[in-house]
C-alpha cells in the first residue's frame, strides 16, 4: 500500500513526546520482566571460568543447530497450517465452517506435555494405532515417532492455534471493500489474495508466528518426552543432573541470543506501512470464495487436521480415563485444583492485560527506536524455560523480598513475566487497527488524554485486549515449572495434579485432571474465536 500524504503526516505527528507517566509505567513493567535476565547474568558471571567451556563443548554447536531447525520447522508448520485454516473457515464456503472454526482452535488448551504423552500413547511403538493395525493386518512396527518428527508434531499442535486465531480475527475484521475493490479492478482471486488479503493479515500472522517460535524455544515437556534435545532440554538436564547452575545460566543466555534473532526477523517482516483503515469500513461480512469442486476435499483435509490435533489427544485421554475407572472405580472431580487453576489464570490474565497496555500504547502511538526496543524487550522472557524464570524469582524472592516469597502474588508475577507477550500481541494488534485520527479528533474536540484513552481507545481496542488476556489465561492454566517452584505450600492447580500423577507413571490418574483442564479452558477459546464476528471497530 502506497503512502498517502495523510499517512505521512500521521506518522510525523505520532512521534510527539509521549506523556511521562506512560513512559514510566512501560519502563517499570519491562524492567520487572527483565529480572530473569539480570539473574542469568549474575549466575553466569559468578561461577568459575571453566563453566564457560560449556560453549565450546563437543555437541554445543550441534545443539544450536538442532534447536534452530526445530524452531524453524515448527514455526513454518504453524504458519502454513494456521493461515490455511484461518482462510478456509473465514473466507470460503467450506462445509461446517462454524464448527470447524471452533474445533481448529481447541488444541490451544492442551498442554504440550499432555499432547506429547497422548501422541506417544497413540502413535508410540506399541500405541493404540499399532494395536489397531496389529489385529487385522499383523503390523508389528510403525514408523518411529520419537525424536524430531514427534517433537515437531507435538509442538505444531501446541502452536498453530496462535497463528490461526490471530489470523482468523484479522481476516474477519478486515474491510471487505478492499478485496472487492481489487476484484473490481480486474485482479484475479489469487492476485487479490496475495496483493490485498496477505498484506492486511500480515501483522497478525507475524505476531502468531512469533508466539509459536518463542513457544518452541521455551518448551520442555514435549521435547523431553519425545527425546529431542533442544537448547531448553539441555538447560533442564544441566540443572537436573549437575547441580551447577552456572553452565545452565550460560546456555540460557545463548537461548536469549537466539530469541534476539527471532525478534529481529519478526520486526523485519512487519516493517512496511499502515495497517489500519481510514474509514469505518464496510459494515458487512466479506463475500465468501467458492471452492467449487475443492469444497469437500478441503473439508476432508481440515477435518483430518482437527482429528489429529484434537481427536487423537482426546481419544487417548478418554482411553486412560476408562482404564482409571475400571482399575479404581468412580473418580472424584478435582474441584480444589480446578478452582486454583481458574483463580490464578483469571488474575494473571487481568494483570497481564493491564501491564501490557502502557507498552502497547507507547510502541503503537509514540513509535521511536526506544519505544520499539522496549516492546521487543518485553518478549524476551517468553523464550526462557519456565525453570529459569522460576529460579530467578526464587533468587530475588528469597533473598530480597521474603515477605512475598512463595505467595500467590509472586506466582502471579511469574505468570505475567512469562506470558506478557501474549497480552501484548492482543493489545498491539488492536491498537494498530485503530486509526490515530479517531483519537486525534477526540482530542481536538477537547477530551483529555486520559479521557480519550478511556472513552475512545480502550472501547475500540477491547476485543483485542480481551483476546490477549484470554491467551494469557490459557497459558497460565497449562503452566507447570514455575507453578511447582513458586506456589504457596498446599496450592494445587490442574497442571500440578497432572504432574503429580504422571511423575509416578499413573497416566490413568492424570486423565481426569487433564480432561478437566481442557474442559475449563475450552469456553475461553470460544470467546477468542467468535470475537470479531460483529463489526468490532465500527464506531457505535
Amino acid at each position: 500500500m502506497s503512502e498517502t500524504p495523510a499517512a505521512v503526516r500521521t506518522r510525523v505527528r505520532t512521534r510527539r513526546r509521549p506523556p511521562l507517566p506512560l513512559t514510566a509505567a512501560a519502563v517499570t513493567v519491562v524492567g520487572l520482566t527483565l529480572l530473569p535476565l539480570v539473574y542469568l547474568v549474575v549466575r553466569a558471571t559468578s561461577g568459575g571460568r571453566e563453566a564457560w567451556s560449556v560453549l565450546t563443548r563437543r555437541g554445543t554447536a550441534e545443539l544450536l543447530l538442532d534447536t534452530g531447525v526445530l524452531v524453524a520447522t515448527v514455526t513454518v508448520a504453524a504458519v502454513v497450517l494456521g493461515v490455511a485454516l484461518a482462510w478456509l473457515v473465514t473466507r470460503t464456503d467450506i462445509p461446517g465452517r462454524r464448527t470447524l472454526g471452533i474445533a481448529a482452535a481447541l488444541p490451544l488448551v492442551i498442554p504440550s506435555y499432555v499432547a506429547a504423552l497422548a501422541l506417544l500413547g497413540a502413535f508410540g511403538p506399541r500405541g493404540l494405532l499399532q494395536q489397531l493395525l496389529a489385529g487385522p493386518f499383523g503390523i508389528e512396527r510403525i514408523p518411529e515417532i520419537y525424536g524430531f518428527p514427534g517433537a515437531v508434531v507435538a509442538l505444531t499442535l501446541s502452536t498453530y492455534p496462535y497463528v490461526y486465531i490471530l489470523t482468523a480475527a484479522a481476516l474477519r475484521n478486515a474491510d471487505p471493500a478492499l478485496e472487492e475493490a481489487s476484484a473490481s479492478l480486474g485482479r484475479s482471486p489469487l492476485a487479490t489474495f496475495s496483493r490485498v488479503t496477505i498484506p492486511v493479515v500480515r501483522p497478525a500472522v507475524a505476531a502468531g508466528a512469533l508466539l509459536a517460535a518463542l513457544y518452541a524455544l521455551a518448551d520442555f515437556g514435549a521435547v523431553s518426552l519425545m527425546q529431542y534435545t533442544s537448547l531448553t532440554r539441555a538447560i533442564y538436564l544441566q540443572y537436573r543432573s549437575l547441580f551447577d547452575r552456572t553452565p545452565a545460566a550460560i546456555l540460557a543466555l545463548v537461548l536469549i541470543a537466539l530469541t534476539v534473532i527471532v525478534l529481529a526477523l519478526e520486526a523485519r517482516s512487519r516493517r512496511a506501512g499502515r495497517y489500519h483503515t481510514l474509514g469505518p469500513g464496510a459494515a458487512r461480512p466479506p463475500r465468501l470464495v467458492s471452492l467449487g469442486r475443492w469444497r469437500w476435499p478441503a473439508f476432508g483435509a481440515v477435518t483430518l487436521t482437527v482429528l489429529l490435533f484434537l481427536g487423537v489427544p482426546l481419544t487417548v485421554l478418554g482411553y486412560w480415563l476408562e482404564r482409571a475407572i475400571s482399575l479404581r472405580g468412580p473418580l472424584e472431580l478435582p474441584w480444589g485444583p480446578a478452582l486454583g487453576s481458574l483463580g490464578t489464570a483469571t488474575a494473571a490474565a487481568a494483570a497481564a492485560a493491564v501491564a501490557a497496555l502502557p507498552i502497547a500504547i507507547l510502541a503503537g502511538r509514540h513509535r521511536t527506536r526506544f519505544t520499539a526496543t522496549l516492546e521487543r524487550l518485553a518478549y524476551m522472557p517468553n523464550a526462557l524455560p519456565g525453570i529459569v524464570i522460576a529460579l530467578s524469582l526464587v533468587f530475588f524472592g528469597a533473598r530480597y523480598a521474603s515477605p512475598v516469597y512463595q505467595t500467590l502474588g509472586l506466582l502471579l508475577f511469574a505468570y505475567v513475566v512469562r506470558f506478557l507477550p501474549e497480552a501484548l500481541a492482543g493489545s498491539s494488534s488492536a491498537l494498530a487497527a485503530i486509526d490515530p485520527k479517531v483519537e486525534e479528533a477526540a482530542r481536538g474536540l477537547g477530551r483529555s488524554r486520559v479521557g480519550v484513552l478511556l472513552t475512545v481507545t480502550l472501547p475500540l481496542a477491547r476485543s483485542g485486549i480481551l483476546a490477549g488476556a484470554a491467551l494469557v489465561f490459557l497459558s497460565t492454566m497449562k503452566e507447570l515449572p514455575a507453578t511447582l517452584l513458586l506456589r504457596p505450600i498446599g496450592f494445587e492447580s490442574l497442571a500440578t495434579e497432572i504432574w503429580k500423577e504422571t511423575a509416578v507413571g499413573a497416566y490413568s490418574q492424570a486423565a481426569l485432571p487433564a480432561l478437566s483442564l481442557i474442559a475449563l479452558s475450552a469456553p475461553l477459546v470460544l470467546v477468542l474465536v467468535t470475537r470479531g464476528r460483529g463489526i468490532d471497530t465500527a464506531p457505535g
Partner: protein
Amino acid sequence: MGRHRVKVAAALAALLATAGLAAGCGGGDEATQNEATTAQEGGTTLTVYSGREEEIVEPLFASFEEATGIAVEVRYGDSAELAATIAEEGDGSPADVFFAQDAGALGAVAATGLLAELPAGILERVDERYRASDGRWVGTSGRVRVLAYNTDAVAEDDLPGSVLELTDPRWKGKIGLPPTNASFQAFVTAMRLSIGDEETRRWLEGIKANEPKLYEKNGPVLEALAAGEIEVGLVNHYYLYLLREEQPDAPVENHFLDPGDPGALVNVAGVGILTGSTELDAATRFVEFLVSDAGQRFYAEEAEEAEYPLVAGIAPREGLPPLDSLVGPDIALDELGAGLEATLELLNEVGFTS
C-alpha cells in the same frame, strides 16, 4: 454493537465470578488449615521440601503428624530442582528439611554448606554405606538397580548375571534405558568408579552398538517392557510395583544381578536438615521418625513402590531378596555426586545424550 457488548460483559463477569469464588475457597482452605495447625500441640509447623512423590510419601507424613502433633507443610517437586531452589534461596530458605529422591541431590545441597550435621543417634540407625561420611544426610530407603524383563519374551534363566554381558549381539534392539535419568547416571558413575573409565566406555559403546531404545525416565522403560517394545530394561527395582498399579497383569518381572556386579548398585533416597532451620527440634524428630522402626516398616508394608528399609532387622516386602544379599560395586554413595560430571561427559561422548 449492543449484542457484542453484552457478550464481552458476560464473559468478564463470569471470569470475575470464578476468580472471586476461587479466592474465597482458597481463603476457606487456609482458614481450616490454620485451625488444624493451631489445634495441634504446641502449634509447631515443619516445612519439608520433598523430591519424593506425594503419591508415595504422603501417608508417611500423615503418620508423623499423628504421632507427634507437629504439623508438616510439604513442598513437592523434582529433587534436583528443589536442590537448585534451596541453593538459590541460600540462608533465606523457608525449608527445615530436605527429603530427596537420591544421594546426588542431597550431596549437592550439602556441598553448598546448607545441610547441618545429624546427631549420631540418627546416623547409627543406618549402615554407614547408606549415609554421608560427613553425617550431613542419612539414607531412608534403598533402591536396587535391576534388569527388568518381559516374561513373555525371555525366561529368567536366559538372563545374564552381569550387565556387562548385555553387549552380546543377542540383545540387539531389545534393551531399554533412560540415559538422562539421575538414577541411571548414578549407576554408570558407580560402574566407572568400580571398573574404571576405559572398561565403562567400552561397555557403553558395546551397548550403543546394540541399538538400545532410549527413554526419558524409568517409568516409560517399564511401560515399554509391558508393551513388548523391548525385552530387558536397566531400571530401579521399585518401578515394577508402580507399573502394576496401572497394569496389574503386565508380563514384567525384576531380575537381580549377581552380587558384586558393577551394575548392581544399591542407591538410597535420604534426608537432611537445613542449617537455617528455625524448627530444629521438630526437624530432628522428623528425621528420627523416618529412620524409626515405624517409619521404616512403611516401605515394606505400606508404600506402593516397595523400596528397601535400611534399618537392620526390618525385612523388605515379601518376594524381594534380603538387602544383605545384594552386594553392589564397592563404592561410597558420597562419591557419586562428584563423579557425575565425568559420567555426563562420557555419556555425551559415546552418544547417549546428544
